[in-house]
């Protein structure tokens, strides 16, 4: 079938890597289309930009640790993209969020020093770049914390969170503030939508104020709105007269959805197209080039002609890589060769849950220019790259941003498109 739609680049996947690559390509003037089966890990993740949190000990400064990591682990995605690309990608991301659909919402931080933000269980988690709504949570600050539980929300337990924060040396306690709810349980997204309403925020602030003590900062589950979190957060800070910060909850992740919204807006602002619900099921090839992708969209097959393809399809979590019951790893979208798979007889997983899990480092085999093995015009970005264990390293968003950003740069260089805007 001859393609009816032609693009300079078709990006597969709408996670951080895919949307970043697509936005960068579109910003350079390319005609871009994103095909995605569904949303990516944004909706599951914390909404922070983690570049390098553990190596395997906690990393204080990614800027200092990255050169060593790159030297010691040449198979790591950071070795592929290079340290400079990481900083460039982070800068680009922060700018796009500021220009994005959530007025005034921005990210703070840099590669010099990780911020130590409490998780919903109260562990101190290192992130390089964090939403302004989370920044006051840094556990290096001595200011005592009052963690606030919202009764219908099951995904945040303030007392457990506060108790673990206290273990790390910051004074902390918990209070429970019931929200008026129609149901006994609501998820973070439902509550966030209610926090868009200034009247709800005012009433909540009034109820909370009496519980607070002098000098405390306030920890809330991350529910301060999806469309206008800056307004919700700054209003609470001013009404309560103290610093307020969000703590990421179990999925669905409200700050993660904000990331998705901001990146989607960046793609669209630059003229890119995004087709959700489009599952890529095959490709047309001409020798070592892919000429078109076939996708199932809206109940029918559509062919998207492409000069370049960026695969940002994710790893095992997204289903782009599968391990069959025959113990063979397959790349599902294009049937590409994979790398980093333990050989027959070698362990795929280890018996210690927190120990080494060799299979986790499997990914699509690529060359140094992120090109899928054997294909001239297919680039790979994000969690589909081999060599990393993002959730254990605390490197997920860093890898996705940097490799998505660089994939776009590589295409732009080949195509002679405009340099970075």
């Amino acid at each position, binding site marked *: 079938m001859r393609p009816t739609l032609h693009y300079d680049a078709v990006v597969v996947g709408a996670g951080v890597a895919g949307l970043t690559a697509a936005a960068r390509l579109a910003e350079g003037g390319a005609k871009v289309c994103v095909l995605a089966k569904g949303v990516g*890990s944004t909706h*599951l*993740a*914390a909404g922070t930009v983690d570049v390098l949190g*553990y190596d395997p000990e*906690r990393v204080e400064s990614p800027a200092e640790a990255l050169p060593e990591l790159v030297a010691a682990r040449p198979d790591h995605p950071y070795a592929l993209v290079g340290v400079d690309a990481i900083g460039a990608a982070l800068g680009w991301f922060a700018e796009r969020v500021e220009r994005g659909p959530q007025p005034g919402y921005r990210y703070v931080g840099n590669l010099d020093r990780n911020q130590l933000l409490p*998780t*919903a*269980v*109260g*562990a*101190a*988690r290192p992130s390089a770049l964090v939403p302004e709504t989370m920044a006051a949570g840094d556990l290096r600050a001595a200011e005592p914390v009052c963690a606030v539980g919202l009764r*219908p929300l*099951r*995904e*945040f*337990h303030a*007392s*457990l969170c506060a*108790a*673990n924060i*206290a*273990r790390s040396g910051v004074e902390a306690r918990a209070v429970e503030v019931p929200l008026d709810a129609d*149901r*006994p*349980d609501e998820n973070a997204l439902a509550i966030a939508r209610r926090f868009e309403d200034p009247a709800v925020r005012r009433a909540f602030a009034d109820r909370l104020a009496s519980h607070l003590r002098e000098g405390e900062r306030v920890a809330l589950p991350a529910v301060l709105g999806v469309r206008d979190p800056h307004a919700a957060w700054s209003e609470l800070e001013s009404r309560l007269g103290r610093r307020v910060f969000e703590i*990421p*909850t*179990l*999925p669905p*992740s409200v700050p993660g959805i904000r990331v998705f919204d901001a990146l989607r807006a960046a793609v669209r602002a630059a003229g890119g197209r995004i087709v959700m619900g489009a599952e890529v099921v095959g490709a047309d090839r001409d020798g070592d080039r892919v000429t078109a992708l076939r996708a199932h969209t809206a109940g029918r097959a559509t062919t998207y002609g492409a000069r370049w393809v960026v695969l940002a399809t994710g*790893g*095992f*979590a*997204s*289903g782009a890589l*599968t*391990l*069959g*019951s*025959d*113990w063979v790893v397959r790349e599902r979208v294009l049937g590409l060769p994979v790398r980093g798979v333990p050989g027959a007889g070698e362990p*795929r*997983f*280890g*018996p*210690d*849950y*927190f120990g080494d899990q060799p299979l*986790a480092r499997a990914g699509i085999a690529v060359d140094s220019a992120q090109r899928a093995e054997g294909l001239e015009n297919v680039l790979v970005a994000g969690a589909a790259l081999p060599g990393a264990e*993002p*959730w*254990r390293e*605390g490197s*997920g968003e860093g890898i996705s941003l940097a490799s998505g950003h660089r994939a776009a740069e590589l295409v732009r260089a080949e195509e002679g498109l405009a340099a970075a805007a």
Partner: protein
Amino acid sequence: MAGLSTDVLVIGGGATGAGVAWDAALRGFHVVLADRLDLCEGTSGRFHGLLHSGGRYVVKDPKAAEECIAENRILREVASDCIEDTGGLFVTTPSDDRDYADRFAEGCRATDVDCEEIDPAEVLREEPRLHPGISRAFHVPDASIDAWKTVWALARGAHERGGARILPYHAAVAIRRTGDRVEGARLRDTRTGEELDVEARVTVNATGAWAGRIADLAGIEGVRVLPGRGIMIAMNHRLVNTVVNRCQMPTDGDILVPIRTVSVMGTTDVHTDDPDDHTVRQEEVDAMLEDGEKLVPGFREARALRVWTGVRPLFQDTKDDVADTRDVTRAHTLLDHTERDGVGGFVTITGGKLTTFRLMAEETVDAVCRQLGEERPCTTATERLPGSEDGEHYVIGERLARRESQLTDDQLICECELITRRKLEEALRRRGTDDLGDFRRVLRLGMGPCQGGFCMYRATGIMHGLDGMSVERANDALLGFLQERWKGVWPILYGDQLRQARLDDWIFQGVLDVGHLRT
């Protein structure tokens, strides 16, 4: 050291031990029931969930078949709440010996196992996932039984009716013996290290595959139990709604049991020297998946949730001159050590199968009565267990119906198994333990497709908030649960379940960063 005096001390809190406690309590004895782990954490909690009709044994072991069908009929009445009346099928697949079906039908007639041959086409309408090449099919009264629920009902009943003391996490560290009498045991609380001296008129060794070790402690020789290790695989939904057996001589991987929200494929049989050896071998997993395909084509494409091993206790008496002390035709073995060894006050019960636990308990308590020279008749064949008073069987939609009636007033903590906050809090208070695994067994918390991915953070938070538990204990409970869960997950992690596991990793190791709670 604290002390306790009782009529009967039962060591071993599986179905047999709990059954002995219930039986003895109903006969008016005061009982102490102790297990080194939680109740039903050994063999009884590690089987496939089949309440045998006896069909499996009609050709190979007719005596066992007769016992099974008799007990099946009794348990359906007295333990109705623990049983789902799934019915059972024996089917001849293209991989099976075609001549066996006639021998099977004949065996059922000879052993009184209710059996009706039905049209394979009808079977495929009822169970459309089964192999379409089935040539013969028989209906039998197999069912699935929730062992955890059964054992806890037995223990609760023993406590309510006879004041029995139930002591999980109490290991027998020494058997008290004076001359030719056993007079109880010293127990150690495995969580606190505290010891407890239990003086008993009769001590029952109901430790199954571990029976030799307890007999050794009593200074009794030659009680040798060969553990036979088998693996079982839980698939994430009910591939069938009827217990399905392959119609052939019993062998590995020939049975699929729908139980609660899952179906369990079983099993293998490998001899092992160590009953605590839970190694799952890759070859066994592969063979079991292959066998699954023979019953349900496409079995490999379904999600495999967990794999675990259980050990059958296979008794071997190394004493030569004791043939008369036990009934060698029985699948289970009762050793009255007065007769066998001249040691009074001590009885060992081992072997057998979950389906016949009540009969084993009856025979054991009969022996206890003989030892004490008292005549007290057994009533467990007619006394209903707590929860089974109305004689209604468990039905699969039960929790959903209950949940729908409470939709507006209670939080849902585990979406997979439909466990509400109130139910969890009630169990947390009742059990007074901080091992989340205990709630897994009692409530099925974390047993569903997400394997605790979403409910475990919530459960830990609730547990910590409930009774002022220390944060260190709450953290240990969560980390311990994750590690314990992983043990059953990683040897069979593939396909969509691997995807699920990665999502759980994002949650626990990414968003929550629980790995760094460890100090």
